[in-house]
């Protein structure tokens, strides 16, 4: 706002990026931040709507519209324009627990329903958010609060992904003793291992973890509840337990030959890659020189493409089972746009291989090869009345040395629910709101099914509030 006609005077700018050629040489973030003046202009594009849709947290036709955290977007945009960055950051921090995560990885529900986009381009909210959190860290406005008055209530949080971390922060800020258990060696859950480094640099996740540790949260790694730490002990040792373990069971890949070597689930592929990267070791699953096929065209599929490109795959093909989306959005504002979008990984692959690597309405019929995969048979399908039907005579064999399955998740695996001694039905833990029982609450993807980082964060906060309400 600041400037009444900002939205007319300044066009929306997207951050500059390093060239594809340059950026695929490594796994670093490839965005170039705006200079300050440009950033202010971008903030001035915000119209400070009387009824801001950007922070409305609605469900429209089954989709999330507007920021689930209800970030006070118009307010901090205005303050950025005025150059009051610290004040702006404080207003951002009122609702957003980890702007450095959402600023990088959020699909930007706020921008999708920005009123500016009724006629033209939305405000660059995410860039503004990232700018603020960068300023905050750079200028030392974020200091660990060491003066928290403790209330003596002990909370265990299982899982250190976005939901667990935001619940932990919320409770810790309000005086609870919080211990976070993580089954992996590094903390952050999918933030650490599910999202590749170029999209969210791991030093950023680690910076936040250190900050939370400094504020008194105890982090315990390599500890799987029910295996390394019994449920009985957990129940005895803590007053409250929050499970935020995400969705551990991937949607099963059932094509014939699915057990061959060289077939991986995306989460394993990405986890190993990031782990190897951080440990400065050779990639265990290496795409170099291989024909890589990725099944599933969602955000994770795109991340796998970006990873394969960086590892030097010979070719990359992305199979998407749904129909090709319309070239541009056909839904009226403020619906979440349905137009075709080309995310960074696909863009890189398209550039490197000189063609669109996506194949729509296509899935795997059979995995070929002796021991390891050396090709796949694909087929085209139609989605009719909730079911996929094969389109006859569309079978085709394509080369494939490495198959990555990125078809999403169905919920908590049987193994996990057994470990946690929790009742589940169809991979969903049986809950009443957040409550599993008197002591155990569940939040994030584990409660809602797979979703966005920002939704996990919001759910973590809400779950923490629920826990607090029990102790009022």
């Amino acid at each position, binding site marked *: 706002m600041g400037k*009444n*006609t900002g*939205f*007319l005077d300044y066009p929306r700018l997207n951050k500059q990026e390093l060239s594809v050629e340059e950026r695929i040489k490594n796994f670093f973030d490839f965005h170039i931040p705006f200079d300050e003046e440009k950033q202010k202009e971008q903030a001035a594009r915000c*119209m*400070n*709507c*009387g*009824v*801001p*849709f950007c*922070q*409305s*947290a*609605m469900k*429209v036709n089954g989709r999330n*519209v*507007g920021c689930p955290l*209800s970030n*006070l977007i*118009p*307010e901090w945009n205005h303050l950025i324009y005025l150059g*009051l960055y610290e004040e702006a950051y*404080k*207003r951002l*921090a*009122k609702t957003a627990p980890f702007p450095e995560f959402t600023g990088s990885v959020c699909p930007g529900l706020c921008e999708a*329903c920005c*009123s*500016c986009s*009724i*006629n033209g381009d939305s405000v660059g909210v995410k860039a503004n958010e990232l700018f603020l959190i960068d300023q905050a860290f750079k200028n030392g406005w974020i200091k660990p*609060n060491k003066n928290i008055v403790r209330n003596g209530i002990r909370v265990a949080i299982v899982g250190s992904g976005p939901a667990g971390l935001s619940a932990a922060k919320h409770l810790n*800020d309000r005086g609870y003793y919080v211990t976070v258990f993580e089954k992996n060696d590094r903390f952050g859950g999918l933030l650490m291992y599910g999202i590749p480094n170029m999209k969210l640099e791991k030093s950023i996740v680690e910076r936040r973890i250190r900050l939370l540790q400094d504020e008194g949260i105890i982090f315990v790694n390599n500890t799987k509840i029910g295996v390394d730490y019994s449920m009985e002990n957990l129940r005895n040792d803590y007053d409250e337990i929050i499970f935020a373990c995400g969705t551990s069971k991937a949607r099963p890949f059932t094509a014939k030959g699915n057990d061959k070597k060289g077939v991986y689930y995306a989460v394993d592929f990405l986890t190993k890659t990031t782990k190897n990267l951080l440990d400065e070791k050779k990639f265990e699953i290496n795409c170099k020189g291989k024909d890589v096929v990725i099944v599933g065209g969602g955000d994770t599929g795109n991340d796998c493409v970006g990873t394969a490109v960086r590892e030097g795959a010979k070719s990359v093909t992305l199979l998407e089972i749904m129909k090709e989306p319309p070239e541009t959005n056909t839904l*009226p504002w*403020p619906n979440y746009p349905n137009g075709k979008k080309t995310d960074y990984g696909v863009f890189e692959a398209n550039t490197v291989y000189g063609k669109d690597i996506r194949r729509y309405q296509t899935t795997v019929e059979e995995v070929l090869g002796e021991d390891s995969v050396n090709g796949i048979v694909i087929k085209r399908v139609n989605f009719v009345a909730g079911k996929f039907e094969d389109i006859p005579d569309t079978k085709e064999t394509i080369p494939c040395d490495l198959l990555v399955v990125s078809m999403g998740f169905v919920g908590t695996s049987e193994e996990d629910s057994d470990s946690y001694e929790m009742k589940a039905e169809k991979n969903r833990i049986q809950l009443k709101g957040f409550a599993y029982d008197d002591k155990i609450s569940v939040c994030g993807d584990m409660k809602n099914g797979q979703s966005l980082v920002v939704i996990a964060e919001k759910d973590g906060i809400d779950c923490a509030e629920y826990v607090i309400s029990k102790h009022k």
Partner: protein
Amino acid sequence: MAIPSLLVASALHQHLTKMSMRTHVSIVLEAAEPREIHHYAALIGFGVNAICPYLVYETIEEYHKRGYLKTGLKTALKNYNEGALKAICKIISKMGISTIQSYLGAQIFECIGLSDDVIGEYFTNTPNSIGGIGLKEIEANYIKIYEKAQERGDDTLDSIGLHGYRNREQEHIYDPLSIMYLQSACQTGNYDDYKKFTERLSDKVINIRDTLNLEFSNPIALDEVESVDSIVERFKTGAMSYGSISKEAHECMAIAMNRLHAKSNTGEGGEERERFTLDANGDNRSSAIKQVASGRFGVTIEYLTNAKEIQIKMAQGAKPGEGGQLPGSKVFPWIAKARHSTPGVSLISPPPHHDIYSIEDLAQLIFDLKNANREARISVKLVAEAGVGTIAAGVVKTGANTILISGYDGGTGASPRTSIYNAGIPWEIGLAETHQTLVMNGLRDRVRLETDGKLLTGRDLAVAILLGAEEFGFATGPLIAMGCIMMRVCNLNTCPVGVATQDERLRARFKGKPEYVMNFMRFIAMELREYMALLGFRTIDEMVGHTELLSLKKEFKGRIDPKKILFNQNVVNKDSIFKAYKMNSLENTIDYRVLLPLSKEAMNGDMSKIIDIEISNVNRSFGTLLSNEITKMYGETGLKDDKIIINATGNAGNSFGAFLTKGVSISVTGDANDYLGKGLSGGKIAVMPSPSATFDSSENIICGNVALYGATSGECYLDGIAGERFGVRNSGAKIVSLGCGQHGLEYMTGGTALILGKIGRNFAAGMSGGVAYVYGLDNKAMVNLELAKILPLNAEDVENVKTLMAEHVKRTSSKKVANLIETFDKDDYFKVLPNDYAKMVSLIKKHTANGDSNPELAAFNEFMEGC
């Protein structure tokens, strides 16, 4: 826990008053709580002599420390105090009070939401309509706020979403979901989406109607209820001026409402005359309701002639006591043209109508308007407030056909915030009081009652009807249908959807269609029918005033008490609704009996006509009905100059020559009463004393007060002194007199005035256009120089003055003026020229000389850049 400052201050004031000791002391309040202008006004109004809002000062100090301020601390504090003072004075002035002394403890407030006990004890005698919370609840609220403050981890304040919506904070009728459903419904024609919208609203408790239950014990079948088509004919759009909203939006609503046989409202900004002609496809862009507000912008005889209903706006729901305001940035050349004003210059309507100071004055205005258009209904817009019933009873007696009771939550995004939040009361209260008063006084059958204020659902209408309404106004609803997303920047000209803007770049974004507005109207009617069926009524007429079908919902028992609104069940009788419009009986006017028959030939053919006639002061609105008839035939163009000449002798009644059209020249030898030449629309008027008079005409009053109020074109020559408020809101007429009383040419926006004698105080106050010439340099002291400056006459001015004087002598045979011509010395005269107007005129000249294709727009753009 501190006691709320208003409560403690008022309690002390009341106590001291009861002890007869109040005048022994002054009450000084030192508190952290007061911070808004309304707080200060309320504190003073309830008896506080002085306030030290220390938290405000400390906050400013903190701002200073943090480097937010451009000024030093002392200046900042001074600026705040001065700003607050100005704002308080503004509020006080809206109530017609001039001094703080008179406002102090005057208690001119109404309360909504406090219990009678609290009011009785601590705010004694404050009108209180619906009861409400007591001390316990007040305390609980304060504790809640206090506890919330204690929880805070940082030094930021929460956003409570009072003005701009914030998710999960203060409830607003329009939130993202409700806007989305309503737009989707109107744009796709999907009634299910409209139902989702009303369902969304039904979850909210915002208005009094939300606390009321409807009694559905005697339902009838839906198909027995009167049709959607017949219901929508009672629908109107709110008065939103052309200027406040774009041409596209304004015309879209007009077309939609005309297609439905409903009525759109011009608002107070006039209407472009092209719209009085039907479009090729049969659409009608002429608003059925033509509003007459205090500014009288574009109120010409042609405008009035093209009305189906003429609405006199006495006040505006969202900002009672204030006139409309159009910021200069929205006064584009085309808007200025429709309003007869200067582009780029803010237009502030005077709070009162200068021709209405009493109920008799209103009766006169209604009579004028009836003469100006015999077929139109006359509606009077009032605002819900305590005592509105009494006012309405008076209005009925003045001859109004419709009374609109406007609620506080209808309002413009451009209203001042203190007004949006703190002025006006809900229509439920005002409507109920009006209906009850009129029924009890046997006046109800003479008028139709209309109400407005966020009427959005069939249920809203059902409640309104049961409380007494027969017609309904909608404003934000149709705006949302046309694409408004409640940006709340109506005052900034930056509406991003092209609704409330004049910026051509933004107007190009307007996506509204008449069908959307029609869908909105039909949907409400459809839902109303469902409620009518449930309530058991076939027609709206038989449903009016049945308050016995309303009761307080259980969950609000003990929290509010609507008994005053629902009172009166036994006065529902056959006379409790409007019966039929009576044609305006104007057969006894001179215009009808004499002027029309005698002018017929001249009106129809090439012949001119000279009529000599004697008149007296019972002959009011002389020439108006004749002008209406001529306008019906020829529109604004009227007749050739001086085609009909009427020479009257005697003592002219009120509104002599009101809305007189082009080609009609009337003179009276004798004198004239008030409102001479009101709304003059191209005609010519002359008034001179009888040749046999022995007095010096230059020292005697020749006509009454408020002559030429709202004149838009034409000429007027007065061979004598005019009364007070001469030429107020003149926007195009040439007027000459031998002197004038106080407040001459106030709010003038165009035209030329020549005053050849003494002028009264406050001359040219608020004048933003046109030019005035004054004889006698000693008059300079009387000029209000806030917006205008005094200049000597240049060669062009001398020419203008001489021409006007010559015409004056020709029309009035004035000896005095003939003498002035003979002895003419330009240094005896001075010119009064509004600053901005002068700038604009010279800019337009410059751009015309440059050969700009649209010099006016180029000048406007350059002018706005300099602002």
